[in-house]
């Protein structure tokens, strides 16, 4: 029984990897994650990654430091912003397989040159 499940798992993983090849992925993630979709899709393949998934590799404090702005614009830091602090789930602004606009653009005309839609 156990073996059976394992086999099934392997077959499924194989199918997933096949379909993953057709899916857009960031170059830098290809190197780290490869074709292991489950590395991010911790809630199942049909679901978005959980709000904690990206934080397995990324540290929110580091990100906040990297995207810090000058004192006068300090609250426009997407990773530590005025409205939601450091709590904004990554997928609000980032999509691995689809283009997304930063949530700030709902109301503001800020430019985030390094943001990849």
């Amino acid at each position, binding site marked *: 029984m156990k073996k059976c499940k394992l086999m099934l798992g392997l077959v499924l993983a194989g199918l997933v990897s096949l379909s993953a090849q057709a899916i857009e992925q960031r170059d830098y993630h290809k190197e780290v994650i490869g074709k292991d979709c489950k590395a991010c899709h911790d*809630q199942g393949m049909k*679901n*978005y990654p959980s*709000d904690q998934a990206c934080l397995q590799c990324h540290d929110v404090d580091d990100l906040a430091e990297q995207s810090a702005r000058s004192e*006068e614009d300090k*609250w426009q830091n997407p990773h530590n912003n*005025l*409205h*939601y*602090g450091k*709590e*904004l*789930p990554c*997928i*609000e602004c980032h999509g691995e397989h689809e283009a997304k606009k930063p949530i700030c*653009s*709902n*109301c*503001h*005309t*800020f430019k985030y040159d390094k943001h990849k839609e």
Partner: protein
Amino acid sequence: MSNKDLLGRRNFIKGIGAAAGVAIAAPAMAVSESANGVKWDKEVEVLIIGSGFAGLAAAIEATRKGAKDVHIFEKMSYFGGNSAINGGLFAAPDTPMQKQEGVKDSVATMVADQLAAGRGIADEALLRHVAEHAVEALQMTLDAGSEYHPYLQQLGGHSVARTYQTTVSCGAGITQPLLQECRKIGVHTHNRAKFDGFILDEKGGVVGVKMREGYYFDKPESGELVRIKAKRGVIMATGGFAQNVNMRMAQDPTLTAEVGCTNAPGATGEGMFEMFRLGAVPVHLAHLQSGPWASPDEGGFGYVSNYSIYNFPHSIAIDRLSGKRFMNEIADRKTRADAELNCRDAQGNPLPPILITSYEDSKKHPNTKKVLKYNVGWKFDSIEELAKHFEVPVAPLKQQIAEYNEYVKTQNDPQFGKNMTEAKGKYIKAPFTVVRLWPKVHYCQGGVQINTKAEVKDSLTGQSIPGLYAAGEVCGGIHGVSRLGSCSIPECMVMGMTAARTMMQA
């Protein structure tokens, strides 16, 4: 009791749908159900839905009053609701800053101002209850760590300066500290949890809710259904429906998707509508307020809104076709929004009017820098330059400015009767800063009827629905036709606190 009939009717409707083979187009439809035979997945003591001012204040107050197990559920992925993106303006009478600035005010004066804007249909008892407790609510924010500008503002429709504003000029200056305070005192906060209907006992009282956990706003069918028992009751702090275009247009067909909206995307109203299904009294739903201080050059509330709220008292609003003023710049919101919507070109297309302020005065507000930096406002050194940029006839504009400056001097505005107190000594002179104005749907005056204990009234029995409390924008009737600026935060917080107090005494 209306609840039982309601459940029966819903089942009946569902039956028709199935028989006719109609696909249910609205999977998000919430339906209340009987607690009879329900298998509870969880039990909590105090259950709060919505994480804006009202929900956060209710959670803190319930804990202060002895609740040990308080839970806030929020359907979005982030906390704070619409409160986290609003202007952070807080009106209260008899405040320490009013004493310091020598402003004479009272509960009665604030209520009188609100009743005037409400045009005869505002709920005086609720307004008085909120005004009486507003300083207490202000204190709750201070205790949690909110910081305010060291000056008061006099907003449109207020007879005196009574408005505090957070130093970040945003409601997040309150929601962030309150959320941290909630975490500190042990309130449980759940995101991606969407309210999906009430669970009722045999007497029609609310004893729990259905909730979809793991809900994604852009995937209406997502989430796993759980049934949560609420020992002391449920506080609905779910806000308004300004983002629900269908509901907006049902009330006012002119508020199409083409009219902007300042609200957070989650302001879609399901919590309110489910209370109506339960039997709550719908009040004043057609009174939707548009913000006359918004800009067509950015989305949502943006930066211009607070910039113009601060600057209106010492600025002139100009119709670009005539080069003349067209309204009292500090009239109440509806008066101004209606006047702006009348500003159109010869073909009848919108021609957003402009707000002209002396840079010397506008620069005192922190947003002025940002408005210029992010290209949603402009600075000019001369009237000619300004007039050319916005294609305003220069001669009438010059004459209008000269006339207005005379009103500043004499402290009397014969043109529109503007109260010139705050404009004293503030002449319109170069260099100027200018923004464009166009209203955006901002606030729903309508909602469910509550009493001064934050209990929700049943339309058929006239009694309060047991176990159900509501606070904040989800409630209706308080403000009447038009809510005055900075009067929502005190309302949300006071009624949130009130709901918690009533529940803890029940």
